[in-house]
Each structure stands twice: as C-alpha cells, then as structure tokens.
C-alpha cells in the first residue's frame, strides 16, 4: 500500500515534496481521484492528495474572477457561481464515469490539471483559455506562482497556462485563479435528425459561420442517440445533430429562428426548449452515452482532435477496419470514438489515419493492461520530445511527479 499524504497548505506540501525528491520517491498526485483510470498506469510509493487544501479564496463576480484551492470540489464552485448567476464557460467535462471513476466528484485542481473542457469550448474556449493564475509546487519542492487575478496579464512567461493539461507531471497545483462568465439567461438547442456525419459536419460548420454565436455543436450516431437519458431524443432512432444558442431570452428566440432559416437546406429542426437543452448538454458533459454500455460487449473510448473538414474522412477511414460509434463535438473537430475492445485499442490504425489527416488521439477509457502497452497520449516527434523532456526536467528534475503518467519517459 502506498503512503497517502494530505498536506494542509502549500508550505506543508513543498516541504513534503522536497523531502521525497531528495529521497527520490515517486509521487502519485491526486485530487478526488476520479480520473485515475486515465493515462498510463503508474506505481508510486506515495500518494499526495489535495483533499486538505480546499475552499474559495477569492470571488469577485463583477470582475469575473474566482480563486480556489486545488482540492475544492468543482460542484461547490459551480454552486457558488450559480448563486450569482455565473458559470465556468468552458463547461468542464466529467471524465470520471467513463474511465471507471466516480461522477460529479472532481476537484477544480483536477479539472485544470487534465484540461477538462466541454462542448462550449468551440466558441468560449477551453480550460486553458480561462486560467488566470496558478500557485503550485514543483518537483523540487519550490512554491511558485504564475499569472495573477486580473483578466489581462502578460507579465512573464505564461507558465500557469502551460500547466493546464499536464496531468500532474510538472507540478502540483495548489491554488487556481480563473475567469468566470455570466450564466446565459436562455439556452436553446436546434436538433436535426437523420443527417449523415458528412452532412452534419457541413451543417455544424455552416452554423458557426453565422453571426448568431452558436456555442455548441454535436453530432451523435444513431446508436449513441438511443442511449440518451433525454427520452424525447433517444426515441429518434436516428443520428442527431444538435446546435446550441445561448443569450438573453429575446435574443435567443430571434437567433434560433434566423439560424433555422439559414440552415434550412438541412431540413427543419426541432427546438428542445430551455430546460431540455440544459439537460441535454449536461448529459453530454458527463459523456453518459458512453457509460451505458457497461453491461454489453467491452468497449474502449478515444478522444480525437482534428479539424472539422478532416473529420468525415477520418471517420470513414476508421470505419473501414472497425465498427465504431462516434460523437462529433466541435463540428467534428473533436471526436469521441467508441471502438470494440482489443489489445491495442486500435491505436495503430487510428494514429496512422490521423497522421495522414492531421490531428492527434488520446486513449480515454481502456483496461490497465492496454494502457500499459499502448501510448495513451499522442506520440511525440523528436523535437517535441526533446522540449517536453526539457520541461519535465525544468520542473521536476528527479522525475518524481506522476512519473510515466503521460509518457513512459516523462
């Protein structure tokens, strides 16, 4: 059994890390642990949890800024924001349930450490776009900060932003400061049933080419649609293409009508209305369409990043060799791909296809043995590997923080 340490604050943490670094003891960095099933499996003698470093340290709704210690539950942050009519615009996605972890439990540190962004990223930006400042402890046991609490800040290198999505391999985040946004008064979703993937990508791209500030575009295959909790859509028995508009109520009505008109060559959409829209996008944030199959044949889940115009060809190529279900987020620029379980999760094929088209793939959900033998994060070219190794050494020269979680050598 690994030792579990729960430092009280950054000083306590820094002292602990410095001692472990001197003794060359590997550390698993853990928030609520909801995403421990993602990444390469690691074996560490010590687990450091952020669970004793919790609480909001700053919230200025009129300055659109909040700070919280890393172990603060996301749910607490979102509830506090909701009281003031605000939210996290990047709509953090919950990767817990689909990777064997708990749902609804993740911490704000875990959200930023893994860059967990949701569907609104296509226009509102990702987690990295909302980070304003970080405090952290590096692998040397030094406390450092980057950024600050103001929205515009170019003082020094943008170190904090680079820590987003580094999966605890460079530093242990202790406090995050981030931009918050007003909660839109009204949410509407237009849904077109029956479009093929190729046509759906066209429709979603066309929607984003209008001035109506579409901030979510998602296409679900027929099988995935049938797994939706939202029964009115699950009954469609066809693929669906969903496009979201959010704004003040009067603007949303106008924009939804204008958008439907602009996209009329794709057919007449149904309108979900405000409440069903919220439920639908909330469901997508949990990726619950991919957890429903637990009782059926084992599946593995990939996250593919490419550009929308390449998505149909990428999907066609993948389907030539495997029976895949796909959810096309961000107009197809982000593909959640479910494949039948295999020893290499189809990695060779998927990565060969993406290498040709441009983009990268991350294995999100697969058994431990698979994640031990397959590159979970996209393989690096020689120059990127040299820079990444250099960065690892710049933060964590003893290589004790989540060693091997992203790449075997880091």
């Amino acid at each position, binding site marked *: 059994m690994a030792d579990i340490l729960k430092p009280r604050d950054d000083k306590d943490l820094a002292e602990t890390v410095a001692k472990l670094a001197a003794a060359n003891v590997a550390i698993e960095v853990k928030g609520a642990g909801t995403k421990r099933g993602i990444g390469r499996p690691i074996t560490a003698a010590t687990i450091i949890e952020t669970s004793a470093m919790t609480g909001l340290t700053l919230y200025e709704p*009129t300055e659109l800024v909040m700070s919280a210690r890393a172990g603060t539950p996301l749910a607490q942050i979102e509830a506090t924001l909701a009281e003031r009519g605000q939210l996290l615009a990047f709509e953090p996605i919950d990767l817990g349930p689909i990777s064997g972890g708990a749902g609804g439990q993740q911490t704000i540190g875990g959200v930023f450490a893994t860059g967990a962004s949701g569907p609104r990223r296509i226009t509102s930006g990702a987690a990295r776009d909302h980070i304003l400042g970080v405090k952290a402890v590096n692998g040397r046991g030094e406390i450092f900060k980057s950024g600050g609490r103001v929205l515009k800040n170019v003082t020094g290198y943008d*170190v904090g932003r680079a820590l987003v999505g580094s999966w605890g391999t460079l530093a242990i985040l202790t406090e995050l400061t981030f931009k918050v946004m007003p909660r*839109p008064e009204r949410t509407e979703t237009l849904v077109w049933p029956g479009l093929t993937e190729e046509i759906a990508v066209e429709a979603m791209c066309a929607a984003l080419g209008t*001035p109506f500030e579409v901030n979510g575009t998602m296409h679900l295959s027929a099988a995935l649609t049938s797994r939706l909790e939202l029964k009115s859509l699950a009954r469609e028995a066809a693929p669906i293409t969903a496009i979201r508009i959010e704004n003040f109520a*009067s603007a949303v009505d*106008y924009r939804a009508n204008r958008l439907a008109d602009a996209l009329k060559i794709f057919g007449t959409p149904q309108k979900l209305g405000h409440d069903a829209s919220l439920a639908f996008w909330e469901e997508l944030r949990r990726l619950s369409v991919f957890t429903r199959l637990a009782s059926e044949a084992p599946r593995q889940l990939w996250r593919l990043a490419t550009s929308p115009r390449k998505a149909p060809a990428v999907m066609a190529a993948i389907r030539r060799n495997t029976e895949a279900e796909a959810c096309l987020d961000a107009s197809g620029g982000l593909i959640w791909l479910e494949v039948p379980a295999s020893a290499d999760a189809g990695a060779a094929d998927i990565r060969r296809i993406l290498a040709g088209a441009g983009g990268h793939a991350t294995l999100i959900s697969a058994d431990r043995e698979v994640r031990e033998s397959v590159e979970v994060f996209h393989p690096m070219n020689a120059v990127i590997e040299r820079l990444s190794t250099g960065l690892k050494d*710049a933060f964590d020269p003893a290589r004790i923080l989540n060693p091997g979680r992203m790449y075997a050598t880091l």
Partner: protein
Amino acid sequence: MIIQLPEPDLSIVGRREQIVAALVGIAGRDAVVSDEDGRRAFETDAMTSYRRMPLAVVLPTSTEAIANVLRYCNANNLKVVARGAGTSLCGGALPAEDAIVVGVSRMSRVLDIDYAGRTMRVEAGITNLAITGEVAPEGFFYAPDPSSQLSCTLAGNIAMNSGGAHCLKYGVTTNNVLGVRVVLMNGDIVDIGGDQLDGGGYDILSLMIGSEGQLGIITEATVRIIKAAEGARPMLLGFDTNEAAGQCVAGIIASGIIPVAMEFMDRPAIEVCESFAKAGYPLDAEALLIIEVEGSEAEIAERLAQIQEIAKPFRPTTATISTNAAQSARIWKGRKSAFGALGRIADYYCMDGTIPLSRLPETLTAISRICTGYGLKVANIFHAGDGNLHPLIMFDANDPASEAKAEQAGMDILKLCVEVGGCLTGEHGVGIEKRDLMRFQFTPDDLAQQMRIKSVFDPRWLLNPAKVFPLDARVGFEPAATATAAIRRAAA
C-alpha cells in the same frame, strides 16, 4: 534613461564584416541589411528613447532561411533579436550592437483559409489588420486588435500575447492562435499545435505565446477567425466621479451583459481626444465610458437601453446612444486617436498595468499624486472590462530631466498596480521597460521557474538578450559565456 543595457561584446563587434559575409552566404545578399543607413531603421522600436545599432539585419523570406541563420548564430554564439514591425512599446524589439536582428516582415503570405473550420494559416510577418482584411469580404475577422494593428505583425502579437479593446468578449492572442511553426535557436523547425482546437502532450503553445521572442522565432501560425456580429453600436456615459464610472462597469457585468468593449477615459484624456477628434465627448465629465454592444438592431437597442437603466443610480451626466454609423465612427475615432492626439501636445510614455476594477478610483487618485509629485501631467485610458490601465505620462523629450522623471513615475505606477492586486503589464509585454520591476511581482522561485524554461528552448540564452528578466537575477541560469561583462558586473 534609467534602464541599464549590457555593453556589447567587442570581440563580436570586431568580427562584423566576417559575420555579415557569412549571413550573406546563408540568406542571400537581398536578405541582409548591413550598411549603416539601412541598419538605422532597425535601431529602436516604439520605445524610441532607447536605441542600439544592430550588428546586422537579416530579412529572410522562408522558414528554412531563418533556420539556417539561427543555426549559424547558435554555432557562433551570436545573439539574435527577432523583429516583426518594431512596434513594441516596451523595448521588446530593441537590438544590441553585438546582436543580429532577424525580421519576419518579408514573410506575410496567406497560406490557407478554412471558413468551415474557421481557421486561417498565415506567415507570421503578416500585419494584424491584413489578417482581418483577407477574410472581411466573407464577414469574418481576427479578434485581437492592438492599437498598432495597421502595422504590427502577427509574429510580434504572438511574442507579446497582444490584446486590444475587444478582449473582454473575444480574448487575447493566446485564445485565438491554434498553432505555430517555430524555429528554435539551434535551427530546428517545429510545429506546435495545429488547426485542431487543442494540442496533445504538454501545452508548449502556451509557453511560446507571450515569451517575447526568447524561446524561438515564429514564422507561421494558424489563427481562429470569427464571423462578425450583425451589427455593433456604442454609447457614451459621462460621470462626475471615477468611482461612479467604475461602479457602473461593475453593475453592467453583474447584470450578465458582456459588452464587446468598455473603454474608460478620465478628464484629461477626454479633453485631449475631444479637441482633436470632435467626437462629441462631454467636457464636463470627470470620467467617460464608451460601451459597445453587438447583435441585431433590436438586440443592440434592447441591450443599450438596459445599460442606460443600470447606469441611472450612478447619476450619469451624459448618456448618449449612438443612432447612426457616422456617430459611432466619430465616437470610436476619438478613442482611437487618443495616442496621436496626445502626441501633438506633448511627448508621453504609455504605461500598461492591470488592476482589479474595484481598485480603480483609489488607483487613479494615487497615479495623479505620483505624477504631480514629479511635476508631470497624466491622462488615463482604461480597458474597463478587463482592468487594463494605460496611464499616459506627459513629458518634454527635449529635457532629459523631464524624461527621466516620466520614466520614474511610470515605474512607481506599475509598482502601484502590483500593490493593488494587479500586474506590471496587461498587453505590452515586459521587454526592457519592466524588466527590473519583475521582482515586485515575482519571487526568486517564480522567476527561476521561468528562466529554467528559457534554458530548455535556448540553452545559450542568445534569443532577445537582456529582456524580461532582471540582469542580476540570471546568475546560474544564463550561461557565463553569454552574460556580458555588464551583466556580470550588475550581478556582482
């Protein structure tokens, strides 16, 4: 002139002819500027009080040529200063007598436009405004809009993570760039990010953007383009006090409205701009807000009416909603001509701190006190939505004492910004200007972490020397072979 610059390495200066010949051999005669008149055009940037004649200037037309130049410089321990259009306000592009300027201004082609995916690939020497110009016929634009957008390059924008007046809604450069092609100091060419929304592995792109030309030279980039709103219209709100204007901004944000721009001007700024542009600004107001919203005509009307209602408790002395395009253009002309208008009546330093909005009134009072203390006048322009403050300190450039006082006042103001919870620079960058103030914002460990990153990309510290980090903070990070005598002395 209170900023210390390292003395040049005379052994390098003495080899100038040999180095120029080598550069001509590598990049071609057309790409190398070596005569004194030619080089003089590159001796400063928009922080014109500091000038250094570069050893030579190279203006390549391809990524490969830049790679060859850097490989040569790296092998010969020659410092390199990357340059876009030279519009930096913080001395970010200031050359050195023993450094080669490598400019990207001849690389300005548009390589690909993907309207469906809303991205555009360009060579990084393209000007900011030319990017929008290219896609405007289709109703698209590139969002970051620094005041120098007519001439500044995307490469410079990326190096400084530039902002503009519309950041509150659309973000700054780092939120609008998806990928870059970079030449590293050793000559390696590497693509970071791409045309997808995020990269795999470490977010090296985030480090590259805003690294002030110290990690590599950007030669190409993929940027996001956005469909423009149906329309946009501003309104003017005048107030008796800075405090009331600040509270009004807070009230607007609390209501859930994110205007596309919220610009604040204090009385001196209002007077200067109004006398120049005849924009219709109220001369009886202590503080003026220009607030612009976007959308359909009906949406704009509703939103501006809402803002007018929010403003009422703060007793605006003026509340004018623009009713037509000509009036809108006049209102913006006043704000956008602020720098030129002020330049007609005085020399000025444009400072660039950021502060929390709630600290605006006391900060403005303190700025006024600082400047009065030095016998100087100041006008303030403020991107109110994001807290980015631009005090314009007026001085007489013909009087060295006045100029030194202005510099000193500027330093005091930036320290004040940090003290009230803000930062040294919101969008201009550190360059040489704020280099020696970095310790007011950062601890030695904060700076050490940044400098270790610098060493990963440029182990010999040859790129954009003597910028960003205090000279005496570099010991142990910058190799002794690069640190010049002056730096070593400063450290001693």
